[in-house]
């Protein structure tokens, strides 16, 4: 295992310490592994989180116009409820808190519990669950579809809504609408290595890729041979469009890298995805290309489509200023 780390047990806390040093507008709470904004505005608070290893998710999305706090679990393991509770406490300014949860069994149980704990403290908490991955209906980590890169759009749009001074219910409605309108599909080309384990959790042949693999290396839908960028764009988009036909609509597109895939390849893929969507008469309003929701050093990508209407476009264009996304 070649990683730039010290003790594998310390990767999460050391990473978050490194993050706040680079972004002094954020504050780190140790033990509970929470990152929050230093300056709190009086508004609905937004909290997300989950296992670590998906950087910049979620701490990288804390800042003006997106999250107020992010809660990190160990690598690929849900944060415990007390950690999430701390995130809620930090995000709360009296107007309630929305929890944005990716649909993994562990996350669901731990975030639900945290919601209850916060309720006992008199903090009003609502939750939404992101299930954007069209690859599989159930997985080793979830009942129902998994939440992946589409989550970043939920952070962005709900965050923009909260910034307008909207109520918790209004912010939740925007989050739900975003979730209803977003779909993703991914593919992996090489495995990732958990720092505490030291060897790959799965293997792929020299010319093999796996379509639909999850962001923890959970099985996808098909192992196949390496494809051209054009073929990949076709496969990933077709799978999304078969589930959710956005022909004739406007969308936001995210071409996401899983960690080890160079930006060059993501841009080449973007070029093909744009061509493919044009053929389907889908108008792309805005494109995001980069590593937004990763899986340690996995090579691969995901495509996310978000169907837009006037409300969502406005929220997408609203200013945000976080380490990993600035609009």
């Amino acid at each position, binding site marked *: 295992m070649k990683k730039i780390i010290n003790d594998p047990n310390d990767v999460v806390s050391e990473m978050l310490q490194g993050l706040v040093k680079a972004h002094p507008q954020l504050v780190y709470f140790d033990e509970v592994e929470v990152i929050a904004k230093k300056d709190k505005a009086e508004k609905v608070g937004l909290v997300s989180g989950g296992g670590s290893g998906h950087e910049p998710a979620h701490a990288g999305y804390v800042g003006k116009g997106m999250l107020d706090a992010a809660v990190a679990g160990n690598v690929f*393991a*849900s944060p*415990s*409820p*007390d950690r999430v509770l701390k995130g809620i406490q930090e995000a709360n300014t009296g107007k309630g808190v929305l929890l944005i949860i990716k649909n993994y*069994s*562990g996350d669901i149980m731990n975030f639900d*519990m945290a919601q209850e704990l916060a309720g006992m403290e008199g903090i009003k908490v609502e939750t939404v669950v992101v299930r954007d991955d069209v690859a599989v209906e159930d997985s080793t980590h979830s009942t129902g579809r998994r939440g992946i890169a589409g989550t970043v759009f939920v952070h962005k749009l709900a965050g923009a809504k909260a910034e307008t001074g909207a109520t918790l219910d209004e912010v939740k409605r925007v989050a739900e609408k975003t979730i209803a309108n977003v779909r993703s599909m991914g593919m992996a080309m090489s495995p990732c290595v958990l720092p505490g384990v030291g060897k790959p959790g799965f293997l792929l042949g020299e010319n093999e890729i796996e379509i639909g693999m999850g962001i923890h290396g959970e099985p996808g839908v098909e192992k196949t041979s390496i494809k051209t960028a054009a073929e990949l764009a076709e496969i990933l988009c077709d799978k999304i469009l078969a589930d959710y036909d956005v022909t004739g609509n406007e969308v936001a597109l995210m071409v996401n890298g899983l960690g080890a895939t160079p930006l060059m390849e993501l841009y080449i893929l973007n070029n093909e995805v744009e061509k493919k969507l044009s053929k389907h008469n889908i108008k792309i309003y805005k494109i995001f290309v980069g590593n937004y929701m990763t899986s340690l050093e996995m090579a691969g990508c995901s495509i996310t489509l978000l169907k837009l209407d006037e409300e969502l476009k406005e929220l997408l264009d609203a200013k945000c200023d976080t380490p990993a996304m600035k609009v």
Partner: protein
Amino acid sequence: MDIKITSKEYMEYIELVAKKIELNKDYVTELDSITGDGDHWVNMNMGFQRVLKDKESLASMKLSEMFQKVGMLIMSTVGGSSGVLYGSAYIKAAKVLGDETEMDINLLCEVLEAELNGIMERGKAKPGYKTMIDALYPAVTRFKESLEKGLDNHTALQELKQGAIDGMNSTKEMEAVKGRAYYQAQKGVGHIDPGAVTMCYQIEVLVDYLCK
């Protein structure tokens, strides 16, 4: 036979549970390796050892306070499903304890029932899903029925224990519906669920402690 469980006594019981779990590392780990990701013993052991560390202070607390605190400790120490499931169980139970300073047998039954509900609600799971619930549910049911029928305390407690044992064994032929075991080729059929085993340990130890 009279049942009066104080915080101090409950912590004595916890100590015995911790020991019981500690001694069954290989068996529990093996079961979770077959049906899940192999960490269930580590999780449970870490959780109970952590609780033991605060034994003194916990023993001096009010019952409901102690349950709340035990729940929080397990929850924050243990990763994975069992941490939040046991955490939920204890915290739910804390609520029914109110201001009581000791549990009689009826309150014990209510506490166990609250724990059961805490787990079922948190895990969105039911009996038959091949989980820890399959040990706790029949145990609590038979315990409750015995008390309702007016059976003596000793018999009721034995029913509690036997319910857990039978329930645990019944998971062997079940197909998993929740958790990682669900994704095994055979959905774990032919193997006992590790969470049911450690749940059963806790009930056995409780009954033995109370009947000693």
